[in-house]
């Protein structure tokens, strides 16, 4: 009886200690993630400016469906996503396979150099890219000196080229980041698998598609999901390179939410509605990517 009681109290004490270790973190995540999400949900059913908000039911959601600016922002973000993420992932994979060769010289140098863009802040590199791609910027000057183009390209002021500039910028910043994940995964693949394949007469292209890609599938899935989430949240680059312009040609969804809340008259209710569209997109796209990768 006594021993039993003691056992219970020790277990209770252990349980209490366990919970106390995780308490602060759990409370902080509830306070700064889950509670705001709930508040955003409630806000999305309210309209008004600043602090004067009142319930208006589905009106924000109805507005969302006919909002041309939102459609533009959504289209822009989708373009970045569909073009940039695959380019970056293929590029990162390609580079990491080249770098995984043990007989390669200057491996460390190449790896460090290609990873280097990741140490810059999004703001700093955006400002640098804005000047590099300016109408009289270094990129145009160099392209003209090399006679690749005869007149300067309007990288930032033309709707088409402005999107390309953003895509180039993001690719520059994040390819090395993804490469690191592939490199460490490649190092975990047993070399004997490749040796066996070579003995069987498999070419390096066959080896890439039959061994490397299947072995890297979980990492490719991970990087494509994180890149998708990252692109859906795109903000710093667009604001600092193009300000969302020309017109709204480069406006991202995050920037639109920012504009709705902090740039024009604060429309918090509608901004919250737009923000739920990103949450929905992230959930749908993540599920889709899991399905495509064939995992549950």
């Amino acid at each position, binding site marked *: 009886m006594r021993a039993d009681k003691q056992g219970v109290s020790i277990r209770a004490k*252990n*349980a209490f*200690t*366990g*919970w*106390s*270790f*995780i308490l*602060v*973190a*759990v409370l*902080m*995540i509830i306070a*700064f*993630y889950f*509670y*705001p*999400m709930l508040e*955003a949900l409630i806000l999305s059913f309210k309209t008004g400016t600043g602090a004067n908000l009142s319930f208006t039911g589905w009106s924000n959601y109805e507005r969302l469906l006919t909002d041309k600016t939102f459609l533009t922002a959504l289209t822009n973000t989708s373009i970045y996503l569909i073009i940039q993420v695959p380019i970056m992932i293929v590029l990162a994979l390609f*580079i990491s396979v*080249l770098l995984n060769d043990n007989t*390669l010289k200057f491996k460390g140098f*190449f790896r460090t150099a*290609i*990873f*280097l*863009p*990741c*140490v810059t*802040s*999004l*703001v*700093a590199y955006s*400002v*640098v890219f*804005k*000047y590099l791609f300016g109408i009289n910027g*270094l990129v145009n*000057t160099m392209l003209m000196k090399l006679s690749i183009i005869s007149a300067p390209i309007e990288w930032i002021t033309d709707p088409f080229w402005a999107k390309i500039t953003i895509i180039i910028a993001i690719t*520059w910043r994040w390819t090395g*980041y993804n490469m*690191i994940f592939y490199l*460490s*995964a490649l190092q*975990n693949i047993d070399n004997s698998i490749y040796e066996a394949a070579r003995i069987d007469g498999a070419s390096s292209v066959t080896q890439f598609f039959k061994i490397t890609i299947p072995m890297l599938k979980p*990492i490719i899935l*991970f990087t494509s999901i994180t890149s998708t*989430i990252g692109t859906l*949240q795109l*903000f*710093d680059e667009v*604001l600092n390179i193009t300000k969302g312009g020309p017109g709204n040609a480069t406006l991202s969804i*995050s920037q639109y*939410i*920012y504009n709705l809340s902090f740039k024009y008259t604060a429309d918090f209710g509608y901004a*919250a509605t737009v*923000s739920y569209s*990103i*949450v929905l997109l*992230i959930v749908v796209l993540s599920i889709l990517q899991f399905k495509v990768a064939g995992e549950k």
Partner: protein
Amino acid sequence: MKVKRIFTYLFLSITALVSIFPFLWIVISATNKSVDVTKGRLLPGTYLVENFKKLLDTTDLGTALWNSAKISILTTILAILFASLAGYGFEIFRSKMKDVVFNILLLSMMIPFAALMVPLYRMFARISNAAPMIGIDTMAAVMLPTITTAFLIFFFRQSSKMFPKDMVEAGRIDGLSDLGIFFKIFMPTMKTTYAAAGIITFMSSWNNYLWPLIVLQSPQQRTIPLLISNLGSGYAPDYGLIMLAIVIATLPTALVFFLMQKHFVAGMTGSVK
């Protein structure tokens, strides 16, 4: 075979050059006059000192650096403390209920910041009335939402799996309390994990832009990314000066990266292994 080799080196060299070039350009430009930067001068100049003087005279660089340093260092210390306590707690004191809580926490990784910025801003605006010390335009408001992330808890939980459980038992037999075991045994054994987590947190805190942009309003509270963004938005930009500011802003994270490259890579990839 030979052709393939040449192609490999050529491709990697071009990629490396493209990656490094913007860095070379900002460092070179920081030593040149604004006019020379626009002319596309690619040689080091003699205007470094002048640019530096002008930068100190016309901007609050010192204040911004100090603000960024305070916020990043404090955030890093608190973040790795809370996240490692939680990661250790989830792994060492396992229970069904805690696994459920852990999985719910992980869901927060799917929440984009864009969805949080409006409610968070309103939250801190409300706090401002009751407790101005942690309300809008304070260091605390910048830090609070960024200190705890599910990613970092996940990272520490994964690493705790490698921490031998026997050491917890040994500590208990020696009469250490659970907190004692955590601070005296777990922390020293997991030094590399702490280093990696610290680097990642410091970098993201130092480079954070959107939330400080919303929550900080007075110029004297400004952090480095806000200062840079502000310098870059002018109509008659002084390129040499801006490039120097960018070099200075990038220096701390670049240094941290070079000094601790191994931990940094380990930290990034450790999370998916």
